[in-house]
C-alpha cells in the first residue's frame, strides 16, 4: 500500500514585493505553501539574500571579511564590492551612523551617501535607517525623495513613525517600505492595518516581524512567524500576507558568541568563524520559519545560505 500523500496547499498566498528596476529587479513572496515546502507546490519566488553594507565601514577585525573588501576604502566602493558577492540579490545599506545617540551623521550626508551608492551599483537596494524612530521619519523620507525611480525598500516604519514614511516614501515617491514590529503577531497585524489605512497597498510592504540570534529568544521569532504564516495562508488574513524580510546580520554579529575574543575564550576558537556559524544557523532558522528575504553580512554566510536555498527549493 503506497503512502497517501496529502499536500498542504492553500487557496490564499503570500503577497509579493518587487524591489529594484530593470533586469536586476527581484521579487520576494508569492508562495501558497508553508515556508520551503516546495514538495507541496512550486514556490513562486525563492527567498532572497541581501548583503549588509554599513555606513560605519567594514569591521577590519574580521580577517576574511576585511580581505573580501580589501582596497575598497569608501562606503561607496564597499557597496560596489558587496554587489559582486556571489549569492547576493540586493544590498542593504545600514545608516547606523545616523543614530542621534551615536555619530548623528546629518540627514543630508546620509542621503548623499545613498544617492552615490544608488548611482554606483545597479542591484536593488534596501535602506535601513538609524533605528531611532524620530530621526528615521525624516531620514527615510529624504532618502525616498533622493532615490526616486530606483524602487528601493525603506526599513523600517514602526508604530511611532509609519505615517511620515507611508506618506513620503510610498505615496509620494513610489518606493517600498518595511513594517517593523516587536516579535508579536498582533503588533505586526496592527501596524499593517494602520499602514493600509494610509492608503498604502500590500504590494508595497514587507514585514520585519522581529529577529533574534539563535539562542537569544529565537523561540519568539519562530512562533511569531509560524502564526503569521498560518493566519496568512490558512485564514486568508490579508493584513498578514506581506512577505517577511529579516535582518539577521545585525543580530547574529552582536551576541557574545560572535564578539568575545579568542583570548578570552580560547576553547571557542577564532571569533570570525563563530560569527559566521551564528549568522548561518540564524539565517537557516529564519528561512525555515518563513523569512522571504534575509540580510547577511559575511561572504561565507551568503555563499552557504545561497547554496542552502537552491538545494531545498
Amino acid at each position: 500500500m503506497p503512502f497517501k500523500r496529502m499536500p498542504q496547499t492553500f487557496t490564499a498566498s503570500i503577497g509579493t514585493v518587487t524591489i529594484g528596476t530593470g533586469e536586476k529587479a527581484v521579487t520576494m513572496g508569492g508562495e501558497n505553501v508553508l515556508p520551503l515546502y516546495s514538495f507541496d507546490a512550486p514556490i513562486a519566488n525563492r527567498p532572497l539574500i541581501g548583503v549588509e553594507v554599513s555606513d560605519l565601514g567594514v569591521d577590519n577585525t574580521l580577517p576574511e571579511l576585511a580581505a573580501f573588501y580589501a582596497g575598497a576604502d569608501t562606503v561607496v566602493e564597499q557597496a560596489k564590492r558587496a554587489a559582486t558577492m556571489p549569492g547576493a540579490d540586493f544590498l542593504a545599506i545600514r545608516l547606523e551612523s545616523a543614530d542621534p545617540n551615536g555619530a548623528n551623521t546629518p540627514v543630508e550626508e546620509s542621503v548623499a551617501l545613498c544617492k552615490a551608492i544608488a548611482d554606483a551599483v545597479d542591484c536593488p537596494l534596501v535602506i535601513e535607517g538609524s533605528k531611532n524612530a524620530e530621526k528615521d521619519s525624516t531620514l527615510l523620507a529624504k532618502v525616498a525623495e533622493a532615490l526616486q525611480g530606483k524602487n528601493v525598500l525603506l526599513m523600517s516604519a514602526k508604530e511611532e513613525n509609519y505615517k511620515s514614511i507611508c506618506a513620503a516614501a510610498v505615496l509620494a515617491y513610489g518606493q517600498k517600505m518595511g513594517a517593523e514590529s516587536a516579535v508579536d503577531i498582533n503588533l505586526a497585524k496592527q501596524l499593517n492595518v494602520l499602514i493600509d489605512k494610509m492608503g498604502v497597498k500590500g504590494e508595497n510592504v514587507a514585514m520585519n516581524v522581529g529577529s533574534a540570534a539563535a539562542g537569544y529568544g529565537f523561540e519568539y521569532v519562530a512562533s511569531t512567524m509560524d502564526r503569521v504564516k498560518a493566519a496568512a495562508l490558512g485564514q486568508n488574513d490579508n493584513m498578514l500576507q506581506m512577505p517577511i524580510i529579516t535582518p539577521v546580520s545585525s543580530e547574529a554579529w552582536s551576541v557574545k558568541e560572535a564578539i568575545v575574543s579568542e583570548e578570552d575564550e580560547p576553547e571557542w576558537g577564532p571569533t570570525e568563524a563563530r560569527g559566521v556559524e551564528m549568522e548561518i544557523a540564524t539565517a537557516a532558522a529564519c528561512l525555515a520559519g518563513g523569512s522571504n528575504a534575509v540580510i547577511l553580512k559575511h561572504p561565507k554566510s551568503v555563499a552557504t545560505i545561497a547554496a542552502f536555498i537552491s538545494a531545498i527549493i
Partner: protein
Amino acid sequence: MALKGLDIFKLTPKKNCKECGSPTCMAFAMKVAQGGVALDACPYMSDEAKATLGEATAPPMKAITFGTGDAECKLGGETVLFRHEKTFVSKSLYATTVCSDCFDERMEEIRKVDYERIGERMHVEILNLVYGGDPAAYAALAEKAVATGKAIILECSCAEGAKAALEKCKDAKPILNGCNAGNVEEMNALATEYGVVLGVTGANLDELYDTVAALEAKGNKNLVLDVGTASVKDAFANAVQIRRAALKDKDRTFGYPSIVNVGKLAAGDRSMQTALAALFTMKYGSIIVMEGMSYAQALPLFGLRQNIFTDPQKPMKVEPGIYTLNGADENAICCTTVDFALTYFVVSGEMERSGVPINLLISDAGGYSVLTAWAAGKLSAGSIAKFFKEFDIENKIKSRTLVIPGKVAVLKGEMEEKLPGWKIVVAPNEAVGLVKFLKELKV
C-alpha cells in the same frame, strides 16, 4: 475517533494509586485523551478496557527511548506540528559520525564541546558508528564507543557486521540503523533478539512506508525512520511529510521519530551542515547526525535548540546567584536584574561589551521580565533584600554600590531602607544604554 477524558476515566480502576505517574486517575485519563501519555502506563487497566480504548488513544507519534543511564535518550511523543499549539516534548539530539579510522580525532573534537547553558548540559549526545565492511573492526569500534558513555547508533545494513557490534554494545541499548526493503527479515530478527530500536530507510517514502508496515505486521513498533540522503530537498520533504502524516493526517504508520544525516547530505562542508542542522532542528529532525561539532557550530545550534524546545507555557530561567563579568572581584560594583533568561542574556551581553567589571546579582523573580516581575510582586525591595541575605552578599562583596534596572526606579527609596549602607543607582530603561552608562558611572 477522539475519546473524551471522561470516557477513559470510566474505564480506569479509579484507585488513584499514582503508579502511572499522574496524581489521580482523572488526571491520567485527561492526559491519555490529549495523547500525552500511553494507556499502558496504567498497570491496572483491564484487557477489555485496553481493547476498547487501544487504537483510539494511542499517541499519534510513538515515544522511543534508547541508550542507558546518563546517556538515555528520549525521542518522539510529539502531539503538535508547531510549538505554539502546545509544546514540543522531545528536543532534537545531535550525533557525530565516527569510523574506525577517525574515532580518536572525532572524540577529541567533540569532547571539547561540553558546557552548561541556562541549566542544560550542552554536548553531543550520540555517536553514529559507520560500518566499514569488516565485522571485527566494527565490533572493536563499538567497544570503544561504549567506553565513552555516549548513546550509540549503529549505521550498518549488513547483518553480520551489525551482530558483531551488537555483541559488544547491546547493554548500551543502541539504535540499529540499517533496515531497508531488502533486509527486513535479518534486521528485524537482530533488533528483536538484542532488544534494540531499529532504524528504517527506503529509496522513497512509498518504499519506507511499506517497510514500516511490514515491520509492524511482525510486531516491531520500536522504530525510527531515516529520511535518507539522496538529496537535501528529498530529506527535508521526507522529514516534513513523515511528521505531518503522523500528527495532522493521523497516519500511525509514520508515527515514529526521524534520523537525518546532514553529515552525508553536505559531506565536508561544515557550514552547510550548520545550516541544515538548524533547519532540521526547526522542522522535525529527531536525531541530527553531523560529521563533527566544533564550538563555532555548537554555540548557535545548542542555543537554537534550547529556544525551540522550551515549553511556551513556561519561561526560560537562569539560576539565581552571583555572576561575575569582565573579571569582577569582590570590589567590583553590583548590578541586579531578573532571572528571565532573555533579560539576563541581553543585559549581561551589554555589560560584557562595556568592559566594566561587574557582579551581576540575579534573584528569583519567577522567570518574568523586569516590569512583569515587579507588577507580580516577584521583584521588590523585599525580594532583593532576601536574596542578599540568602546569598550572604554583604560578606562576599565589598563594594556597596548596587545598580537597579531603570524600569523599577521606583524601588530606589525602599531599597535604600532595606539595604542600609548601600548606594542604589538607577540604570537606563533599556539595555542598549548600559554600555555608555556603565563606562561613565562614577563609584
